[in-house]
């Protein structure tokens, strides 16, 4: 371990709460998003237990509605959206491009405080009556009819949006202005490209959700008629505005995870990533096309047939860049030197689950099929495959990959592999039955259901108990490893990025001297400093090259 690093440079509670070090702010975010993950997870646990019986086992319909609403709000706005950008992105983005910090360190700290204030309002809503509008806040239910604590929740999500905007701004400026000598755009790690694309969505999309929720809040508080038809408003207008942000928000969640996967795969296959520029470009393509597909959430609202046709076509187009990524990741494995370390297990698990999540998106984008599966459990399964199977697997995989850098310690490898397998199996057992439930016609957001759906619901709940174990294990051993783990050293895997050139954990200034980049990304061929066999083409045991 280095004698001095960002964790022990200064001590005391003030040195954390007033820090401007991007790495410490990342740790603050790590603690707070984990807190919200467990709140959202507790709601999910109650949902799954409740659905064990057709009439509902645990709570009243009213409470059930609050459970799934608060599960969605906590997980989406306060865990998934900030998780990878604000934790891993904050920690890594400056180091990966050879900078000392983000461009605006104080604004970075401000982002975290805004997040806390927003989170405080939402927790206040949860604890004083709860929220029962669905995370989608559809009007006029949310703005007129709901009797729950909608106003503080809307204010909380509104405030939290500024945290995203400031983080996005910080990332974009940092990438443009603070790259180390030699760090050209096409030498940047793909994780940085993914964060850059995500930041574009943060800045362009988040103001729209802020305005939308503000209007819904004004309608609720002061009876201004924006969305309530009785006051001359249009409830469908809310959906247009809401999804204009909230569909791109799906890409806010999945793009950073794709960035993580693009780092892990070349590292554990020890070869350059296949089609670097296509993976980088597809991130930008997803960020841009993602803004033009929102009304595919609204095929059955009565929107015009022509508009439905256009949005269906565009929804198919946005699938192509995702497919390009999957093909390139798979091809990267070809003739690699593949190890079975934990981050690689997460990365491969990600591809499998994202594949299912993405391909079932093609079913939903299909206008004819959507009539049947819209608003059923098929949709629930689809987006959990993307957001949990994709985004959360990416986040947990990334935590493992960079844990030695963040803490300077190694986690217990065998236990971590076991946990990764448990997580993968538990996830599929939980959510695959929900595709079948949806196709059979079970609507989402139901606290009770016809008895013929019980078998699949029990299977899903059984799977969820395995999934929960899969989340608790890393929580325990990662915490344990901070104190008792083996010392990691600078570059345990070894990997090629700049973050692995500095100490683990890094200095407050990240580097002793500003690094100069002379190599291409993921280049194992010309890197004698990594201490690997680099003479000519490596020999494979199978002699097939």
């Amino acid at each position, binding site marked *: 371990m280095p004698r001095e690093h960002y964790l022990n440079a200064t001590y005391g509670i003030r040195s954390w709460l007033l820090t401007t070090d991007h790495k410490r702010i990342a740790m603050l975010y790590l603690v707070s998003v984990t807190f919200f993950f467990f709140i959202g997870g507790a709601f999910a646990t109650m949902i799954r237990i409740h659905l064990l019986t057709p009439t509902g086992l645990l709570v009243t*319909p009213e409470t059930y*509605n609050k459970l799934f609403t608060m599960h969605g709000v906590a997980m989406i706005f306060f865990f998934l959206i900030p998780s990878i950008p604000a934790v891993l992105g904050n920690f890594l983005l400056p180091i990966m491009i050879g900078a000392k910090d983000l461009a605006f360190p104080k604004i970075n700290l401000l982002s975290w405080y805004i997040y806390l204030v927003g989170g405080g309002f939402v927790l206040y809503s949860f604890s004083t009556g709860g929220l*029962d509008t*669905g995370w989608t806040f559809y009007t*006029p*239910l949310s703005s007129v009819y*709901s009797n729950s604590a909608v106003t503080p929740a809307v204010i909380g999500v509104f405030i939290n949006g500024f945290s995203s905007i400031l983080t996005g701004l910080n990332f974009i400026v940092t990438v443009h202005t603070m790259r180390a000598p030699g760090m050209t755009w096409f030498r940047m790690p793909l994780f940085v490209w993914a964060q850059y694309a995500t930041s574009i969505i943060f800045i362009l999309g988040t103001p729209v959700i802020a305005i939308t929720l503000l209007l819904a809040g004004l309608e609720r508080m002061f009876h201004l008629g924006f969305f309530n038809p*009785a006051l001359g408003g*249009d*409830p*469908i207008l809310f959906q247009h505005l809401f999804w204009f942000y909230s569909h791109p928000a799906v890409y806010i969640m999945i793009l950073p995870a794709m960035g993580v996967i693009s780092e892990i795969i070349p590292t554990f296959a*020890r*070869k*350059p990533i*296949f089609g670097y520029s296509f993976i980088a470009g597809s991130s930008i393509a997803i960020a841009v096309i993602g803004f033009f597909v929102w009304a595919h959430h609204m095929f*059955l609202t*009565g929107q015009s047939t022509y508009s*439905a*046709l256009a949005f269906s*076509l565009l929804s*198919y187009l946005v*699938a*192509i860049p995702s497919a*390009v990524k999957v*093909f*390139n990741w*798979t*091809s990267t*494995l*070809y*003739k*690699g*030197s*593949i*190890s*079975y370390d934990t981050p690689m297990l997460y990365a491969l698990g990600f*591809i*499998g689950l994202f*594949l*299912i999540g993405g*391909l*079932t998106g093609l*079913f939903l*984008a*299909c*206008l*004819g*099929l*959507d*009539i049947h599966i819209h*608003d*059923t459990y098929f949709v629930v399964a689809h987006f959990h495959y993307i957001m949990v199977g994709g985004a959360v697997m990416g986040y947990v995989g990334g935590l493992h990959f960079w844990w030695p850098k963040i803490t300077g310690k190694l986690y217990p490898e065998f236990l971590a592999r076991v946990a990764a397998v448990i997580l993968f199996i538990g996830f599929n057992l939980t959510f695959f039955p929900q595709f079948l439930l949806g196709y059979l*016609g079970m609507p*989402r957001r*139901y*606290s009770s259901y016809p008895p013929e759906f019980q078998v699949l619901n029990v299977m899903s709940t059984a799977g969820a108990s395995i999934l929960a174990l899969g989340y608790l294990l890393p929580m325990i051993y990662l915490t344990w490893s901070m104190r008792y783990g083996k010392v990691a050293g600078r570059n345990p895997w070894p990997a090629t990025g700049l973050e692995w050139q500095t100490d683990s954990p890094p200095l407050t200034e990240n580097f002793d001297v500003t690094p100069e980049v002379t190599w291409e990304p993921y280049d*194992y061929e010309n890197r004698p400093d990594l201490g690997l066999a*680099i003479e000519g083409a*490596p020999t*494979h045991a199978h002699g097939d090259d």
Partner: protein
Amino acid sequence: MVYITVICLFFGVAITAAIVYFFFKYRRTHPEQVGVPIHGDMRLEAAWIVVPSLLAMTMFAWGAVVYVDYRRAPVDTLDIYVIGKQWMWKAQQPTGLKEINELHVPVGRDVKLILASEDVIHDFSVPAFRVKMDVVPGHYNTMWFRPTKAGRYHFFCSQYCGTNHSLMGGWVTAMEPTEYAAWLSGASEGSQNPVLAGEKLFADKACITCHLSDGRGRAPSLNGVYGARVLLADGSTVTADEGYIRESILEPKAKIVAGYQPLMPSFQGQMTEEQILNLTAYIKSLQSQPVPATGAGIAPATGKK
């Protein structure tokens, strides 16, 4: 469905198989071993952009055909009005018979549901018929289906609508046409015909003082207006469907018929959804009467599907 499933299964299985195969085939056999530096291949990139794009377009086209057919109801349907409110469904048969959380329909006949909401957004869905449609306050949506087999089928509210959302469902009973007719005449006794109820409203709400049937009133004659193309003051035209009639009752100034002044008061908040439906039913019934020549701005539909 089968087509998309087959394509998705093919890609899903192929990619998974490739990953698993590579995973074991190229496993690291020596701790210092590195992979073969392959940077990419333009032909492969082009192939896996173009081929999935083309396949996706075929999926789009097939789905589009089904959807367009679904959104355009055939002519000569059996029209049933359905009102959603927290948390129940009211249906009204053409005879005026009302049902709650039940819907009886004849087999072999195209059935069109005209959907209205009293409060929040609901969604009427019948999974067995593969149909659903949002029920949005403030305007009408329609959906249609043709039952093919007698039986009892679940219907659900599929759009989350508040506390008892999951209890807001019932049964569609598809009956043989003769049984349906017998059921309808037997059960309809004593229920009020919506056209008659609408005719009474037409007089009570004083519609009749301006909308004279000979076209010489201060407002256009409504004879034959349903289904016709209406020429508006701004030069555009609109088809007078249920949605247009509803809008004209609630927001009369939104679309002014050419040649008339915007004099009509709004009935927003003064009529229940049910009354609006009855009035609409009455106005629709007027189309069988001869269209007076002076019906300025209103032309009979030509070549309508």
